[in-house]
């Protein structure tokens, strides 16, 4: 079993919260993350073509990243997600990634292990198909971050 030591601190705290709970409580927490997922800013709402669909997710999930130009050389990466309210599981995982990764540097995001979703302790309650969707969501973010930081360096 992987530990949370390798994770950025906000994400590690979320994983610790999940791991401390029983399975029904974990689902409840995921629901709370789905409710906490921020709305898209207006400039992205009007431009759905700027978002990419993660086709591996069972429900429509779109995301994009932006790197803040000002600030430290590393540049904070902002994450944006769009998922319908009738897809709470997908939204919940987007909420976990948003709270755990938004505002971090490209290096920190790229350091997150690909199988991080397995750490949430949901593999029994959530079907393998959906777990793969979660892993794909993280993978897509990391690919976009890697591409974006390669362009900048």
């Amino acid at each position, binding site marked *: 079993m992987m530990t949370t030591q390798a994770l950025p601190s906000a994400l590690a705290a979320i994983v610790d919260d999940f791991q401390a709970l029983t399975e029904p409580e974990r*689902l*409840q927490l*995921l*629901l709370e993350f*789905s409710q906490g997922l921020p709305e898209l800013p207006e400039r992205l709402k009007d431009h759905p073509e700027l978002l990419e669909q993660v*086709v*591996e*997710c*069972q*429900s*429509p999930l779109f995301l994009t990243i932006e790197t803040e130009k000002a600030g430290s050389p590393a540049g904070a990466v902002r994450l944006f997600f769009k998922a319908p*309210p*009738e*897809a*709470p*599981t*997908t939204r*919940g995982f987007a909420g976990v990634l948003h709270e755990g990764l938004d505002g971090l540097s490209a290096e920190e995001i790229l350091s997150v292990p690909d199988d991080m979703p397995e750490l949430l302790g949901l593999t*029994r*309650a*959530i*079907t393998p*198909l*959906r777990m*793969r*969707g979660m892993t*794909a969501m993280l993978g897509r973010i990391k690919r976009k971050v890697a591409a974006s930081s390669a362009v900048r360096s």
Partner: protein
Amino acid sequence: MSYPVEQNEKFAAYAHPERLVFTGWLAAAIDNGAVASGQLVVVESDEDVLLYETGHIPGAVKIDWHTDLNDEVTRDYVDGAAFAELAASKGISRDSTVVIYGDKSNWWAAYALWVFTLFGHQDVRLLDGGRDKWIAEGRDLTTEKPAPARGDYPVVERDDAPIRAFKDDVLAHLGKPLIDVRSPEEYTGQRTHMPAYPEEGALRGGHIPTAASIPWARAAAPDGTYRSREELEALYLGEAGLSEGDDVVAYCRIGERSSHTWFALKYLLGFDSVRNYDGSWTEWGNAVRVPIAKGAERGSFPVALGV
């Protein structure tokens, strides 16, 4: 004790109208206290494991296809003891009237109904139109979880044979009607999973030779209700070429979408012998030396193996 059945013109045309209820009927039954008294048990069964928690029909309990109905270890359904415990914990007794509804035109609700039927539960019905229609009509939703009094449910041995087909049953069935309810892309073999859904381990694409392609959602109207008897006959007797009295097997990817079609054939059109092949393409598309047809043509049987 059974709760009175729905009476309306659309349902009256079906072979077993007592298997469906209308949203207005359910709302009235809730108002009359039938759910609060436990006479009627409303069950929500969705694809998304968290959807019920976002709001559900007042008094409805949740049954999740993956965590509640599937065995955790073997690829099979739960056994009689586990089902009895599940039912009792949800306030369901052997003689309860159970109304099931869910998302996506009752796709998963029909699957749950089919599993209830494996255990011979007598009075189990679908809410026509499911969750989406209930919401579209602006009816009440709540996030309050009911705490039903325990039901009294005996340990009943599952009786698979009448409505469930295994791979060997399907091999023996070849030459008799099969309905493939997957998307056209899955049927032709262009892909092994639903459009916009992840690729999911089937080593071969295509369909079981001779199967007619009738994607499951064609049995549903835009509002998620089942199409009328006349429309269903045009689809299954006309297009698929079924005849009255046929012995039919329906399949999809894991048996969920085909439960929706199974319900239409069994209860709405009145075919006595309809089985759902729940192994479906995730078994057939991985099995060694079973016949497969590719492309839009149904293909023929017998086929030569290994050529």
